[in-house]
């Protein structure tokens, strides 16, 4: 096992050299987590918007459930997806277990509630402001939802970012349904866990650095977009 200083130097060298294995892992991580974020937004945003503009019996209980689902334990989600995709499970015939697709499904299930719950709050506040104007225009439910989603787009970027952050950083679900197979389902978090257990801190640290850089980069990009939107009074 290397000491921290040595491991850090090796990690920087790995990143600088453009190590193929390292970037394969980074690429798969981004592919899985971005796909899951897009899918979670496609599912979560309309649900959040519909709940935001609707009044119905049991709405309070649904809000409690939506908020509770934000804290879904990744290993439990991984286990559920595993049971469904395993050979004896109801979706076993699809043969998706230990594939990136299964990992995308698991991460989508994990972050869709986050997107739904956070977007519901954002859109409900905006709807309170627009409601009378929209009723005056006799807008349909679909027109209302689409207008709210468009006008809240910069705030919803932050919601999507929260979902992406959760997806790219989680390890419990993807390791169960992906299996951490080299060159197939190994992503940054599972590789970090594996390399740390093997004592190869250089690769683990290199991956950790890339993960942090991605997190910082995405946050900086969204923050810059939001500041630009704020200057235009679009936030």
């Amino acid at each position, binding site marked *: 096992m290397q000491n921290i200083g040595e491991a850090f130097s090796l990690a920087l060298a790995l990143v600088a050299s453009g190590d193929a294995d390292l970037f394969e892992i980074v690429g798969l991580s981004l592919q899985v987590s971005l796909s899951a974020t897009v899918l979670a937004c496609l599912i979560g945003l309309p649900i959040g918007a519909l709940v935001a503009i609707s009044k119905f019996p049991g709405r309070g209980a649904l809000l409690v459930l939506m908020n509770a689902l934000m804290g879904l334990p990744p290993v439990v989600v991984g286990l559920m997806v595993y049971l469904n995709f395993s050979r004896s499970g109801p979706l076993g015939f699809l043969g998706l277990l230990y594939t990136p697709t299964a990992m995308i499904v698991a991460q989508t299930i994990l972050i869709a509630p986050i997107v739904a719950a956070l977007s519901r709050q954002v859109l409900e506040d905006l709807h309170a402001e*627009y409601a*009378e104007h929209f009723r*005056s*225009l*006799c807008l349909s439910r679909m027109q209302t939802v689409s207008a709210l989603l468009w006008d*809240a787009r910069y705030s919803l970027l932050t919601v999507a970012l929260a979902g992406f952050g959760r997806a790219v950083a989680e390890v419990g679900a993807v390791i169960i349904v992906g299996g951490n197979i080299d060159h197939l389902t190994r992503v940054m978090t599972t590789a970090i866990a594996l390399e740390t257990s093997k004592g190869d801190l250089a690769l683990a640290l290199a991956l950790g650095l890339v993960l942090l850089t991605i997190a910082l980069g995405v946050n900086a990009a969204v923050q810059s977009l939001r500041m630009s939107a704020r200057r*235009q*009074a*679009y*936030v």
Partner: protein
Amino acid sequence: MSSIDTAAFRPDTSIAPDGYAPLLPLRVRGLQLGFDGAMVLNGLDLDLGPHGCTAIMGANGAGKSLLLKCLHGLISPDAGQIDWSGQSPTQATRRQAMVFQKPVLLRRSVAANLDFVLKARGKSRHGRDALLDHVGLLHKARHPARRLSGGEAQRLALARALATDPDILFLDEATASLDPAATQAIETLVRDACARGIRVICVTHDAGQAKRIADDIVFLHGGRVSEHTPAKTFFPEPQTQAARDYLNGRIVL
């Protein structure tokens, strides 16, 4: 601000096949509405004819804004009837527009705010720039709407209302927070709308404004219409003690 080609904003008859059936005269009977445990409108009766500009006046809490929202279909009354010449409430609301005291502008450009309304009503955008020119905002078409001054924002709200080519235009204290110049600009647009045949019903506390733009005054007191007279007689000769007290600046309870 320039004159406007109103033909560009005629109702789309493919959306409202009975769109030209008259909404007026309006007949309101026994309107009741409670708010925060108090009966604000209490058996209100009102008749409005097809032309001109009506100002609804009354002390704070008299129910002026609530009455306007009931008429526009934004609030359902607890009891009573609102009869827009037999038109269904939804059909009536679609042919009306409302400008609120605080303009609600979308987080978009000035032009996009108008585009949104035109698209919602199934109308083409070809008259948009003429309408922006009409309200003096064509040069700000690409500006963010929420960066407009109070007067400009209210003119945009009025333009948006006019873009729907309404039969009835409701104004809920639309100039309450504006300076005299901005108020005058709005009044000019309202008078112009009135002259084009749009029936205007406005709520105002500004007696000067009511004198300038209104043909008749509906004075609310005690949850009912206590006086409904032509503007030219309401101000010099109010018929009720409550209206006299209101015009003389005394507290009306």
